[in-house]
């Protein structure tokens, strides 16, 4: 009798030990995954990036813990609770456990409350989005007074099917977006046709550009380099060509670029979609229907289609 109780106690002890060991191991792996998750993301090149990445790492850790907790339990069951061949008997008839069910309702509730509070805070810290003003589409884009603080701008970001054009406060036009480092730059996001999206992965920022509305937007680049700007809202036939570069420069280099570009005569800017469409026409206009690409923008700074980017 006493030996049976002892054996039971021993079994209970070893079970507790296994559970503690598994939980500790899971916590360690989850923290490592959170740490590792930074390497899955592009270079951090704006002030938003490290907030986003920290949030993502936090969620990766929690997610890994839950994923391994659930699937580890499943694996355990598959190893130890398999029915032998021809055994059709029933398992333990457990119908439920109110305490357990309440726990697994409350704990996820607290978790999602924590995550959404954390990210609401990040939202208020970043505040990239300014105002969205509707105007008569086709008429001149109205001036919008930006109530938020910024250091440089506003730069007009003009998106089209399928090229980008950037107009600086002193009137120069460019096919690539040059920005001074560590200055909060302000933009007016404008589209001339359909919805586009201003997306720079290295900045971790994305904002749709809505026809008939002008949207103001601010961000602070924090790293020098060349980063891809990609249209992220499907915009038709040559959507995947609708990309250009953001070039973040030190203040001196940037000011020098502005001074030199003012002197340049306007010429045809980057328009890879236009080139592809010309090629298509030359090959007999095969394929399904598309609207014609917008003509080449007339810009002071043409930029380069073959520039290598950092991310």
């Amino acid at each position, binding site marked *: 009798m006493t030996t049976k109780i002892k054996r039971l106690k021993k079994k209970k002890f070893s079970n507790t030990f296994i559970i503690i060991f598994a939980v500790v191991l899971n916590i360690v792996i989850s923290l490592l995954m959170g740490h590792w998750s930074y390497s*899955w*993301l*592009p270079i951090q090149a704006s002030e*938003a990036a490290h907030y986003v990445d920290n*949030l*993502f790492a936090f*969620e*990766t850790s929690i*997610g890994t813990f*839950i*994923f391994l907790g*659930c*699937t580890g339990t*499943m694996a355990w069951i*598959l190893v130890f*609770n*398999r*029915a032998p061949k021809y*055994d059709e*008997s029933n*398992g*333990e*008839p*457990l*119908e439920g456990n109110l305490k357990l*069910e309440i726990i697994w*309702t409350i704990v996820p509730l607290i978790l999602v409350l924590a*995550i*959404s509070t954390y*990210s609401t805070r990040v*939202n208020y810290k*970043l505040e990239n989005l300014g105002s*969205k003003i509707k105007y008569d*589409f086709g008429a001149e884009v109205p001036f919008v007074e930006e109530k938020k603080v910024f250091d440089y701008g506003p730069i007009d970001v003009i998106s089209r099917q399928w090229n980008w054009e950037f107009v600086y406060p002193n009137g120069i036009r460019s096919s690539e977006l040059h920005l001074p480092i560590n200055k909060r730059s302000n933009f007016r996001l404008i589209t001339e046709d*359909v*919805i586009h*999206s201003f*997306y720079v*992965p290295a900045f*971790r920022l994305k*904002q*749709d550009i*809505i*026809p*008939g509305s002008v949207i103001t937007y601010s961000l602070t680049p924090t790293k020098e380099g060349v980063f891809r700007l990609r249209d*992220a*809202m*499907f915009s038709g*036939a040559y*959507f*995947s*060509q609708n990309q250009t570069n953001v070039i973040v420069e030190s203040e001196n280099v940037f000011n020098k670029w502005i001074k030199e570009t003012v002197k340049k005569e306007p010429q045809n800017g980057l328009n890879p979609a236009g080139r592809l469409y010309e090629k*298509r026409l030359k090959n007999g206009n095969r*394929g*399904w*229907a*598309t*609207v014609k690409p917008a003509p080449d923008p007339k810009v002071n700074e043409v930029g380069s289609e073959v520039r290598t*980017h950092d*991310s």
Partner: protein
Amino acid sequence: MTIVNYDPRLVKTKNPYPKGPNDWKRFFSFNTDAKVIGIQYIVTALFFLLIGGLLGMLIRGELITPPSDLFDPTVYNGLYTMHGTIMLFLFLFPILSGLTNLLVPPMIGAPDMAFPKLNALAFWLVPVFSIILLLSFFVPGGPASSGWWSYPPISIQNPLGKVLNGEMLWIIAISLSGISSIIGAVNFVTTIIRMRAPGMGFFKMPIFIWTVLAAQLLQLLGLPALTGGAIMLFFDLTFGTSFFRVEGGGDPVLFQHFFWFYSHPAVYVMVLPVFGIFSELFPVYSRKPLFGYKFVAVASFGITILSLVVWVHHMFYTGTPMWMRNLFMFTTMLIAVPTGVKVFAWIATLWGGNIRLSTPMLFCLGGLFNFIFGGITGVMLATVPVDIHVGNTYFVVAHFHYIIFNTIAFGIFAAIYHWFPKFTGKMFYEGLGKVHFALTFIGATLNWLPLHWAGLLGMPRRVASYDPEFAIWNVLASIGAFILGVASIPFILNMVSSWVRGKSAPPNPWKAIGLEWLLPSPPPHENFEEDIPTVLNEPYCYGLDKPFVEDEQFYIEKSLKKI
């Protein structure tokens, strides 16, 4: 009150065909038998799974290399639009309607659906709009190519300026699909509320019935928004109205609200019945009662209600104000709570069970495994700052394929295998089923797991060409897609050969509890005919020594044709 007398021939027919013998022609007629309609839906849908899958492989063929070299980008856009449309409206919705048709009447002890003719009408709309949609490949200018969202202004640009164009046919097809689903939903909801067997109170219904009720109510609440939006889009495209046309003062963002008000809940319309399938199958193959039946049942309605107030999470970066983003982030994350209740209940059901890894169980376990992963990436996407980075990238594509294929389609395959003997009267081949599972699991994982990293690095979705740094993830994904294509071979082989010459199935091959398992395989036309059983308990009392129905032995013997 008039008493309807059944045609005695009808009661005696071996196969569910009122006007004739065991006749394959019944599947090609305007048949009003829910079991025939169910099979019609499923077979049609599986055919479109093949077409949609073929388009998917073409997409992956284009994306295996960075430049756009296999098709012209316009063709690529048409192919991916049709891939999404076919998979959702011609495969997933119809196949779930099919399973619902097959399972609801037998599971609740009803002879048929409440409105059999309406039911047949709902099905026959499927081939009609399918043909309309497929015809759009052949109109000048090609099919719709603005994505399955069909956002204006891109969807109403109509480059050739012709009245008849792919986009127009697309809108007509989608509206008809919506009408078909609304008709189906009216039918399912009425049947479940009015035609349950005596004794089957709401808290004695199978979980599958709970989830169907939750899903179909969601259809009724949400679909009118999409169908209305689609009709306005049709007017803008064809008659030049300005609901969404900016030049006339319309607002394109309005369409996004109409669209997502339904189309986010649509995911739950599809996933809820699959949760029902998981809840039915885990108890059977682990020989244990469903853990926390009532919690699991009520959680379905928690998901229904919450899913109506989350749609703006698709629009976090369209210029939505801050308070709205924060609010919808919170409501979206709340869905994790009832969903978590279900996941934990399934794992607790498995715990300490007597697990049998048959093909349906493998698909369920694989589906649950994938769903836990897809659910976690879903919470990440609900987080506004993270979504602003990964939204509209391949991270989203990977996430929703983890839900829509790796969970929903896995659950559908599990259901097809599990109930195949019941409704065809034949057993399938276990070995081929396991090969199908292995190939599907490997292919699906290889296809969609790597794409998460492409998205994190900033590869936008819907691109026909991409920067070379994303190549590695895309090569892996394409290999996975081709493996998935191969996986369809053992499945088709299994289904066709088993149905034609498989071993005869006993009434209850899996020793499962449930009204449908008290019927012969295949069930007669009117299911229980005059002897509707009285239900005493919910159908999960494995090892509990609680009787399921009154006089169970009578039904078992009747199903074995001993009476």
